[in-house]
């Protein structure tokens, strides 16, 4: 799959933002007034910034309001609805904390639930796709959710929780890669099933429909960078997982914490790039590619 920067930034930063909102909604840390404002500002910058960046890949962003209508069937529509619900609920909750020194617990818990739902619905947009076997497994939502909770904990300044959750997220990430590598073969979709010519003999793509490229090849058959996948996986894991945990284990210091956050974000961005770049869409089989 083509790793579109807008979608990578969206899923990483909104994942972090909503992850932080989950912690804030549950009252961890129990901040009010100015410090609450700072926490909420960071969360909203990330979540809303991510959402805005996701509209950059739309052909017609001016019609985006229509995307709230099909929540009965579409995970993308559900994501839009959950995101707005989470942002409105958490906005009201934050208003109470910042200006009235009041903790409306029920509102916070509801906001946290909708924040979790937003990250889950985001992950389901990918996990629902049978056409991309690497994504079509329960580990995909687990991967997104664990990274979101871990990143949220890190931003919320929860040192112990962050260290544990980051290690957990790293483990899930590793498992996602190991299982993901086998998914295309396990799906049973190959050139023989794509063309149904396999019972005659071995199928080979002889001539593509056009001499030039096309939308399908640009969007679905992205092979650049796959050869560095192994190295990039190690880099991603070191940055997202090992480095932040090491920094968290040292005596707490704000500068070290900033480095931990930066390393984690860079690692998650690398992992998310691989999430797209390594994903094989079955339509590539019609072109003899994967």
């Amino acid at each position, binding site marked *: 799959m083509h790793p579109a920067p807008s979608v990578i930034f969206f899923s990483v930063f909104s994942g972090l933002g909503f992850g932080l909102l989950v912690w804030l909604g549950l009252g961890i840390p129990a901040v009010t007034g100015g410090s609450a404002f700072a926490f909420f500002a960071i969360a909203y910058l990330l979540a809303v910034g991510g959402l805005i960046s996701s509209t950059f890949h739309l052909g*017609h962003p001016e019609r985006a309001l229509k995307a709230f209508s099909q929540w009965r069937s579409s995970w993308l529509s559900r994501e839009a609805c959950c995101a707005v619900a989470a942002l409105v609920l958490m906005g009201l909750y934050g208003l109470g904390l910042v200006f009235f020194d009041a903790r409306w617990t029920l509102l916070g818990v509801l906001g946290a639930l909708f924040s979790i739902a937003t990250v889950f619905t985001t992950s389901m947009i990918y996990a629902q*796709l*049978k056409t991309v076997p690497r994504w079509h497994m329960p580990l995909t939502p687990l991967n997104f959710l664990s990274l979101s909770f871990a990143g949220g904990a890190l931003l919320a300044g929860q040192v112990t929780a962050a260290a544990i959750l980051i290690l957990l997220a790293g483990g899930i990430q590793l498992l996602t890669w190991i299982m993901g590598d086998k998914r295309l073969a396990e*799906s049973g979709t190959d050139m023989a099933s794509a063309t149904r010519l396999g019972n005659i003999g071995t199928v080979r*793509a002889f001539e593509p429909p056009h001499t030039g490229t096309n939308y399908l090849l640009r969007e679905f058959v992205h092979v650049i960078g796959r050869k560095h996948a192994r190295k990039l996986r190690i880099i991603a894991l070191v940055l997202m997982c090992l480095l932040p945990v090491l920094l968290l284990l040292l005596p707490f210091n704000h500068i070290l914490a900033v480095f931990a956050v930066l390393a984690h974000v860079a690692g998650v961005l690398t992992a998310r790039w691989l999430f797209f770049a390594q994903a094989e869409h079955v339509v590539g089989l019609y072109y003899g590619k994967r």
Partner: protein
Amino acid sequence: MTTLPEQTDKKLGLVIDLDTCVGCHACVISCKGWNTENYGAPLSDQDPYGANPSGTFLNRVHSYEVQPDQGTAQLIHFPKSCLHCEDAPCVTVCPTGASYKRVEDGIVLVNESDCIGCGLCAWACPYGAREMDQEEKVMKKCTLCVDRIYNENLPEIDREPVCVRTCPAGARHFGDLGDPNSAVSQLVKDRGGVDLMPEQGTKPVNKYLPPRPKDALPEIDVLAPYLDPVIGEPKGFLGWLDKALEKI
């Protein structure tokens, strides 16, 4: 509404005969022509006369070489367009309701004025049947020439998808695959028509007729080696030339 209908009154679709297709791409061109000039946004091209031409097509013809365990390889031309699936995954993923499957005939369409161009339906399609137009930024797909098949301004003979109407080899057939007595359903039954990527669970309406087994050469008579060769040693001028050239 992007939920799929429980069932459709008809299942209009295509039957494509892989034994008959000669790979001339006439269906590709006629499809591009009709669908550029008629319903919806035109099918744009980018850099059509330059070094890197690319464009939107609703129908593309692949060619595959199939090598059996024994004998010579076969070349099979393989036209591919929207299969108007019964369980169309492209419809249910649509966030705006722009994609829908018609209850009356099962055709899968895009309401272009509702399309936000997110591309998710193209991601959900295993067949590469949907392409985002780079000029209009909306999703384009085969309409089964919905603006031809019911069009009373056209002579009756033209009221079928333009790819079917154009095919000089008669490799494409159009009809109601929900009616077991229709010509297309009979054809699928007789020739063992198949679904593409059945494991994807899309239940495509369009069917593909696999190539029939090739004729085999009849066995040569056991006495054949004892027959005199028809052409013996060259005589006359050619005989002289043959000898002269061998001596050089």
